[in-house]
């Protein structure tokens, strides 16, 4: 396997840390297209300016990926080993059904090449993560992610139960 990585890593996004600096977009477009052009980035920061809420969005590499199910040329494949979804450029006909199917709106399109385009995690070494100084983007082991979610949930429970005697 070329560019092999740990098989269980995933991109984790913390919107509360994001400052909308959009360095991730520059890193992404430079890595993939050789230009600093946010329009050609595969990760996009959605900006809700009036609330100062920023959410970086990229392919979630779903288990049950609707983009690939609907693709009429099977150009969207998932590697069972490393668990990311890739568009095979020379199979993609540019019909955009995958974009229409993606529930998160993160399947992109390269007008230059005429094919669909999603985050490919830079082959296991995502550049956006490297350049995200507030650490809003992390590339974590699935186990770490679970741990993170667990502690977040535990913190919520703790908050809710403050002042109450522990029942259990």
């Amino acid at each position, binding site marked *: 396997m070329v560019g092999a990585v740990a098989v269980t890593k995933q991109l984790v996004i913390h919107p509360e840390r994001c400052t909308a600096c959009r360095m991730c977009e520059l890193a992404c477009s430079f890595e993939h297209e050789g230009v600093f052009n946010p329009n050609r980035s595969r990760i996009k920061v*959605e900006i809700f300016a009036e609330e100062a809420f920023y959410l970086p969005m990229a392919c979630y590499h779903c288990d049950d990926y609707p983009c690939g199910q609907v693709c*009429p*040329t099977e150009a969207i494949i998932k590697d069972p080993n490393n668990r990311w979804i890739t568009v095979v450029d020379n199979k993609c006909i540019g019909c955009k*059904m995958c*974009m*229409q199917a993606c*529930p*998160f*709106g993160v399947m992109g*399109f390269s007008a230059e090449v005429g094919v669909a385009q999603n985050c490919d995690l830079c082959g296991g070494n995502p550049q956006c993560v490297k350049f995200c100084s507030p650490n809003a983007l992390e590339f974590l082991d699935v186990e770490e992610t679970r741990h993170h979610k667990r502690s977040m949930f535990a913190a919520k429970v703790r908050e809710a139960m403050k002042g109450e005697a522990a029942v259990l």
Partner: protein
Amino acid sequence: MTSPIPQQAHYVIIGNSAAGLNAVDATRARDLSSSLLLIADEDTHAYSRVATPYYISREIDDSTLFYKSPEYYQQRRVTTLFGHRVVALDADNHQVKLAEGTRISYGKLLLATGSTPSRPPIQGLEKVKVFPHWTLAQAKDILERTCLSESAAVLGGGFISLLTLNAMKSLKPSIQFTVIERLPQVMPNLLDEQAARMLEQRMTTQGIQVKTGVEAIELAELPDGKTKVTLSDGTEQRVDMVVLGTGVRPNVDFLAGSGLQIQRGILVNERMETNLPDVYAAGDCAESFDLLSGERVVHAIWPTAVEQGRVAGANMAGGASAYPGSLSMNVLDIFGLTSASIGIFQDQAGLEMLRFFDFKRGIYRKLALREGKRIVGLIAVGSPEEVHYMGTIQSVIRRQIDVSPWKDKLLQNPNLYGRIVLEASKGKSSSPLPTV
């Protein structure tokens, strides 16, 4: 090499495209041991019908077109009967009959026979050579003839016609095209009048003649090999080839007298079952129901065929999968304009229409709302960027989320749809994804 025709199979699937093959996958996910026979009248392993326009324009090669390898069938233990046409269904005896007379017994039967180009009542249609575009063989015909043509009339201004035209034009830019559409606009199933005008304008600037509100009434072959097309407005076209793109209809004629309930297509319930025991139908040949209106409808589109095929396949193998109803959706990127639509978008009583124009960027968006707060459809025309939020908005439509808090911002900022879904999901464990 001819393989012996099996006399029976537990699963018999008729159709070798989106619905049939997704049914194969769904069936095999549950039951790998029972026999499965796939019958198709075209003598080839599966190719993608969506890709044939790109085959005409020579943008793809066979490896993309034939998206399923012969090994696909072997791996799933599928016996194939390609090049065989089923001519009758004998439901009492659980049998289908092939053209050469052989009878095959089935345990469970899936009808995924798809569509066929309709032939409008045009005088002389049977006597002249016309070019419909549905199968690969027809695409090859078009490719060949396009190379020899300098002019073409395209009958019908719908999805397939215009995709075919676009492909022919890419292959041979010098051809003079005339599009003849009976209705007052092109793409009546995909676009509203405003969006259609934008597309028609693009076509006109590229030298394509667009005639709407007229239809061909007579075709005749001229001594020089050209075809004369007489139109309802009294004018004539003399062209090297006539592309027939006046829509498709479900391939169900052979089922007459079988006892199956058929209106436009084969009537199915949410499990994709027909009125006959152990007979299922999915895809273009099936008449299911619209997700939003609940009305009976045939949505001859690829995503619907995929979804219905999966439901049918799962249920045939003992699953309990329910189809939520189909949502009409299309996306088209031709003549430098991307247009997409979902659900109900034509002006009608009881629906509130919100419109947004950005003339500078060439964007037109329209939202249709029920009760002033639930989105039932939209149109977006502009760049490929416009397709980005189609999936997110689908979640909003499928779940009929109240969008009134965001109503005044929706058109300007499509990114809000994701936000709406998130907000609506708060406190709910249900997945926003349609589960099939």
